[in-house]
């Protein structure tokens, strides 16, 4: 670490509201994978990085800090479709003093950045809404956009993946979270068919207690979301 600052974002300084996905085991795994990889950025600094679906901002903030630690001057962009998430990300970035390095855009995936971004993204980060849910959950908006993944949890994943080969630069890398239900082997095969290399960078078993906690939290949220309709 060259600057003496923090290497990744702190949970304490991460903003999340009721309508924003709170950093959880999946976020930590994603940041751990990025951190394990960051030493390669010293040699070849990424110039343009993009996180699709930035939520609380915990991941993109960690990425900004890791890039700074690696001495890489990079442009960072973060998108989310949920206004509360975009605001939380901005807040998290500011709390870590990296807000001037990352621009946050309220938009769907990265459509507004194509074609300007075509072939230019060196690091693409994606923690998609991967929880299998009924299809209609996907359209609900708000916090549901952070986890509701439709059939096999693939609804949003399958919208972004076809864009990935066009977005990535020749040296570009994508870091993406998937769970068993998403059929990761098939995701890897899809990426390989598109001419990319694909592998499992990090594998983690959510321990039962954590899984339980997460499920309960999701049930709570689903309840909250259903209440207005039930009335």
């Amino acid at each position, binding site marked *: 670490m060259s600057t003496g600052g923090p290497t990744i974002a702190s949970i304490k300084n991460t903003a999340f509201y009721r309508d924003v996905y709170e950093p959880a085991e999946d976020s930590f795994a994603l940041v751990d994978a990025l951190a394990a990889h960051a030493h390669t950025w010293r040699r070849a600094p990424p*110039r343009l990085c993009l996180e699709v679906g930035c939520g609380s901002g915990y991941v993109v903030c960690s990425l900004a800090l890791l890039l700074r630690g690696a001495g890489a*001057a990079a442009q960072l962009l973060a998108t989310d479709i949920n206004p509360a998430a975009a605001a939380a990300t*901005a807040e998290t970035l500011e709390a870590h003093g990296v*807000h001037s390095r990352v*621009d946050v855009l*309220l*938009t769907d995936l990265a*459509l*507004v950045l194509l074609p*300007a971004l075509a072939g230019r993204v060196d690091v693409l980060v994606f923690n998609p809404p991967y929880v299998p849910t009924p299809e209609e959950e996907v359209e609900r908006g708000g916090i549901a956009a952070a986890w509701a993944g439709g059939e096999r949890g693939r609804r949003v994943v399958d919208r972004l993946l076809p864009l990935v080969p066009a977005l990535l630069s020749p040296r570009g890398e994508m870091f993406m979270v998937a769970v068993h239900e998403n059929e990761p082997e098939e995701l890897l095969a899809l990426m390989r068919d598109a001419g990319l290399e694909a592998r499992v960078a990090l594998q983690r078993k959510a321990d039962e207690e954590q899984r339980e906690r997460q499920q309960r939290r999701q049930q709570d949220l689903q309840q909250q979301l259903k209440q207005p309709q039930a009335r």
Partner: protein
Amino acid sequence: MKLLTHNMLACHIKGVQNGFPFKIEAEKVEVQEADFEPDFLQHIFPRIQWAALCEAAAAMGVEGLPAEATEEMLEDDAFMKKFHHALLEVHLQEGALVCPETGRKFPVSAGIPNLLLTEDEC
């Protein structure tokens, strides 16, 4: 939002052909100092749409960018400082991005452009 980001955004309303660049309506502009990285500027220069950057800088009240820029100017320290400032230090905090073709306004609030489309626009 920095002008570097503005330089990459294009209106993606269905059917729009010339959605680049967004016109900027600036209500509040903030200057935030950024590390001066000549390497990065040299890397990014060939990818910048210069006319769009000039127009955006003017809308933000930033002066001193030449109307045209060439590779040779990257050797000139004074030019590099101005380029750095316009690209990375000037932030649009409040205002709007206006689609050059349709006139549709996308509000910018607390530095975040809201580029969400309505169902009819997708």
